[in-house]
């Protein structure tokens, strides 16, 4: 097996050399994505002697070739990445290598090259992301002292060489120098996929990087323009399939279409040609775009580049015919090769890097987007009522104080009246947040327990958090039912609005999706037992909505509902939430922090108010 792995790397190296490129091998070790104690936002932690428990089995070799631009000054470069599984190369991976090689060999002969071209054939035996990320880490943050992990890798390779026969001995020492090629202007990850057939060659664009960061929209625009208008490819971005068949959306779309027709008949100048099909597809794409940004987990190896402020996208090309059909494949290779060449040439010809502020957007189609200026309004409208409600609630409790003391049947002794009333509520809110902080760090300890599956871990997690909740409730009972629910609500809303605003800076999509759940919950909540001065219908409706929201906004419940929509009800499992949390944590997504530190305490306080008597 090792022989074959190295054969491929050697073959690629040979090919790169033959076109006149500078070549080296990048050797690295796969680090299992695992729980590490809270490492959010800290960029590239110092990997101090990672446990070499995996030994030398988890190492990889990626051949890297660099074409120096003949007359360029070598200040900038463009990166092409083709992940391939070195252990078991599939036909589609071989084709993506072939595609990259043909583009690479073409670029080695062209005269217009101004930026160096780097081709990384990433060994993705244990994951595409890790191999690209470790190459980037060595590119930008190399270690020079020998007690780093790099040394261990060299040891591994030497060991292999010693007990292997002639064929396994790896010619790594000659190609050991890590070479660099200036600041990266853009990166393209090329993958050939074998997907279901369609009438045209297809290209899927993935752009979401960690924590909702996006590459500059111009890069997507270039790819889209060249693919559609030059090569006649079918461009797709991620959509939610279940939304495409949604009856509600269809109905909405038709209504909008009718409305737009009416408007157009009134004034032909107003071009609101909303088509029902477009609307549905746009909504499905928008939902998917928001979901993946909100999740904060990169959708491909391009995510590793975004951590270094490099615009990168993944292009998944799939031919219309089967991969074994030679005619189809050669025409497909021609088109996609031209596309990649065109994109490289466009980036190459740029003097400045992409810089206009098109980094904040949601895609509704490959060539349509919602800009930050538009979607910010929605979020602002969501969040704006919160401070107003806080102020209104607080002032109303302050003003109605005398009336409540007279009308209230309950004794109001030992209550520190006055404007410092809110402090007790604040204490409770603070305690709940503290509780949330503790349970958010619990998974690390739970994951240390050996031999447990996700269901057991989830149960442990929920049990321990409930246990922790018990002293909290005891503690709050010490205060007795001292706080009026209005004050508690106002303090809670204040905390929630601060949390939401902070999150909107870190990951806007998370804040937006979160506010859709959190804001109605916060605004509507009132004790169920409290009588209302409203009509019966209204009060029943309000109670019903309150209960519904309290159920839906509970994070595991909302995840289960989402999963049911995506995959059907059978797929729901108790361990799902654990896996989800583990996933978010491992990718150090800020969404995890949002869910546990903002959303969960707020939800708990809402339930507390609902059950207030």
């Amino acid at each position, binding site marked *: 097996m090792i022989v074959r792995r190295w054969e491929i790397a050697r073959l690629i190296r040979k090919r790169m050399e033959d076109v006149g490129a500078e070549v080296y091998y990048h050797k690295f070790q796969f680090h299992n994505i695992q729980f590490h104690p809270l490492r959010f936002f800290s960029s590239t932690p110092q990997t101090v002697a990672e446990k070499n428990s995996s030994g030398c089995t988890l190492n990889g070799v990626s051949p890297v070739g660099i074409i120096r631009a003949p007359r360029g000054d*070598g200040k900038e470069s463009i990166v092409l990445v083709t992940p391939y599984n070195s252990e078991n190369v599939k036909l589609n991976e071989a084709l993506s290598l072939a595609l990259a090689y043909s583009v690479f060999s073409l670029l080695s*002969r062209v005269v217009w090259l101004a930026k160096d071209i780097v081709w990384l054939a990433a060994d993705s035996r244990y994951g595409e992301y890790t191999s690209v990320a470790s190459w980037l880490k060595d590119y930008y*943050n190399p270690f*020079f002292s020998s007690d780093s992990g790099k040394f261990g890798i060299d040891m591994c390779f030497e060991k292999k060489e010693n007990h292997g026969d002639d064929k396994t001995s790896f010619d790594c020492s000659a190609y050991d120098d890590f070479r660099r090629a200036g600041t990266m202007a853009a990166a393209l990850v090329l993958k050939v996929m074998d997907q279901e057939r369609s009438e045209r060659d297809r290209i899927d664009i993935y752009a979401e990087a960690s924590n909702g960061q996006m590459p500059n929209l111009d890069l997507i625009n270039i790819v889209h323009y060249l693919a559609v208008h030059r090569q006649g490819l079918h461009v797709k971005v991620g959509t939610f399939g279940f939304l495409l068949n949604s009856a509600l959306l269809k109905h909405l779309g038709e209504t909008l279409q009718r409305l737009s027709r009416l408007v157009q008949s009134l004034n032909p100048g107003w071009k609101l040609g909303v088509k029902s099909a477009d609307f549905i597809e746009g909504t499905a794409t928008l939902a998917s775009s928001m979901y993946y940004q909100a999740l904060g987990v990169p959708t491909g190896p391009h995510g590793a580049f975004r951590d270094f402020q490099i615009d990168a996208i993944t292009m998944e090309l799939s031919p219309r015919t089967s991969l074994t059909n030679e005619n189809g494949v050669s025409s497909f290779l021609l088109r996609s090769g031209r596309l990649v060449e065109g994109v490289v040439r466009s980036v190459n010809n740029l003097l400045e*890097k992409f810089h206009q*502020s098109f980094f904040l957007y949601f895609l509704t189609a490959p060539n349509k987007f919602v800009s930050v200026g538009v979607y910010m309004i929605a979020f602002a409208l969501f969040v704006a009522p919160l401070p107003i409600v806080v102020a209104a609630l607080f002032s109303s409790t302050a003003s109605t104080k005398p009336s409540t003391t007279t009308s209230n049947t309950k004794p109001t002794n030992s209550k520190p009246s006055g404007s410092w009333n809110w402090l007790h509520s604040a204490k409770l809110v603070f305690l709940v947040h503290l509780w949330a902080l503790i349970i958010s760090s619990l998974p690390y300890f739970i994951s240390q327990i050996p031999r447990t599956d996700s269901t057991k871990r989830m149960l442990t997690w929920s049990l321990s958090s409930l246990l922790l909740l018990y002293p909290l409730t005891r503690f709050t009972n010490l205060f007795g039912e001292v706080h009026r629910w209005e004050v508690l609500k106002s303090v809670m809303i204040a905390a929630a609005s601060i949390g939401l605003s902070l999150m909107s800076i870190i990951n806007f999509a998370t804040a937006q999706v979160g506010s859709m759940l959190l804001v109605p919950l916060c605004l509507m909540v009132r004790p169920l037992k409290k009588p209302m001065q409203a009509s019966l219908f209204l009060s029943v409706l309000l109670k019903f909505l309150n209960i519904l929201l309290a159920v839906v906004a509970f994070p595991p419940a909302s995840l289960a509902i989402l999963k049911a929509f995506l995959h059907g009800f059978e797929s729901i499992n108790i361990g799902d939430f654990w896996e989800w949390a583990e996933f978010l944590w491992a990718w150090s997504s800020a969404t995890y922090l949002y869910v546990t530190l903002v959303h969960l305490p707020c939800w708990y306080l809402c339930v507390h108010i609902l059950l207030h008597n």
Partner: protein
Amino acid sequence: MFNSASMAKLRRRFHTSAFLLIIFLSNSFHLPALALVERGEGLKEEFTEELLLKPLPDRKVLSHFHFQSSAPPSAANGRHHHLFPKAIAQLARKFEIRELELSFTQGRWNYEKWGGFDPISTTNAKPPGVELWANFDLPLNTIDHTWKNLTHVLSGLFCSSINFLESSTAYSSPTWGFQSNSSKLRYGALPREAVCTENLTPWLKLLPCRDKAGIALLLDRPSIYKSHYHSQRLKLISSEFTGIILEQTLTLVLQPSMRRLSSLSLGDGSLQPSWSLNSLFGKKVVGHCVLAKTSRIFLELENDLALKVDKLQPLSSWNNSAFELSVIPNNEIRELNALNKLRSSVLYVFEVSGLNDSVPLDLGIHWKIPLVWSCSRAPFHVNRFLMGSGNERGSVAITIRSANLHEHFLRASDSCGVDAVIFQVVPWYVKVYYHTLHIFVDGKAQIISDVVRKMKISPSEDKLSSGSMELMLKFPCNMDSATLTLDFDKGFLHIDEYPPDANQGFDIPSALVSFPDFRCGRSYQLDELMHYQSTLLSKFQEGNPVQTYTEVLLVPLTTPDFSMPYNVITFTCTVLALYFGSMLNVLRRRVGEEGRLSRSKASEKPGLIPQLLSKLASKLKGKAPEPPSPLSTSSSILGPKLLSKIILVGLLAVIWNYYLKDS
């Protein structure tokens, strides 16, 4: 003073055929005689033109043009010159320049494939863009001022923006790190300067024959600027004893056009491309520049290549089993190598001056068998790169990797060391913290004082001067690699300090790493060739230390969105206009006054339309028209009347829009 050749031509018209023979003879070897004649009135001005061609291991061809003009100390001729360009002489005299070097370069010199241990690479491999340094013979306090004037003069002379080097943030004054030990040296580099024909033309104008005759005739612009490396250099040395020497070189790395067959398979087994002057430049040498003292073309075969050819067949002739030259060389010079006799490079010499005008010289080489050889690689490879991410901070790293070529060092004891001198200039907006200097040798962190022998650091001052670092290091001989890292913070620029295309990033000019222990002087067997006063070969014999320029780095800085001020201005203006409008409206209006006015208006005769309307209304209601009471006016402001008016206007607008647009 005319050159002897042109004099001969003039005389030829008047003299008889018998005389002609004598003149013809004198044309070929009268140069020493003429020099003897003129020794009485001192040295004379001279011009030589030479061209060196060298096949490179990666199928490219190096061509190095070398033109040298010299003028004796000026006492003899006053201000006038015969050959020497007056502009340069004036410049040298006015600014009292001891030494000056200006280079325009496009492309990067490939130290691994084109050589790093030969005279060409040590003196002619230059960083991309413009590099200028000058050594003045002036008191210290006037140097900066003179430098500024000099940059302006040169930028005018060479049609380039050398004048950007005048600001104190652009140049530095190295003392020992760059060249000689001098405090009167100024150094500046512009990595982003583009090089084109507009720089070449004034450079050619300094030649006595321009590009109209002689070797310079080859300089066909399209083929020159197609080259992979293009470095146009001008060096001026001036002193009271030797006069002024102007050395103009143009170094090109050209790709000979390859046949279709070989372009596909670039593997080791294929033949080197055969080339000739005509295929490289699209031109041939037709005669020499008559003003030139010597006019030669050299073809050099490197050590390794000569060795390989020797192995096949003793390299005796110009036509052997490995290659064939298209022109018979006039001479063949072997390099004298102390280490072993075999491994020495070979120079074929072709005289252009003895050439018949009607037969152009089209020197070429035709390869017969595929040969692979390696160039004379530098003892150390130097790379520089940026580390870190984000717009806040980063670090610069310089790695020096040994090529393990210096076998003669390995024999020495452990205590032996190699010197390396690093000179690096960093613009002020890259704020380097020099205390963060870390040196790793073979992966082990070193104590600075153990490795650094000498250090001179002048930190940058914001918007005043760039920071420069001169380091002399001593590494153990058996070192494999060494790395230096320096951390820096990225500064902020004032909005008007941003250059155009600010979003590309900002350049850190190349650093220079030189190894004074390694000198690449060559010595040639020149026993019977005493009249070979070749300026190029004497340059080769100088023995400059091996030096390497590192890459230019591109640092992305925080750059404001320059369209933002426009947006801000628009927004602010709108808000201000709204604010002032409403505020003025409120201030101007007085409620009491308003009421009084309306009352007085009501007392007067109402307007025509209200009258008509009231009449209409009364008609409809069947009542007599009554004057509107003052009390009812205030309540009817938002009354049904106004509403009906608004609806009426709206309807009219809709109908108007609907019908007019249709038509």
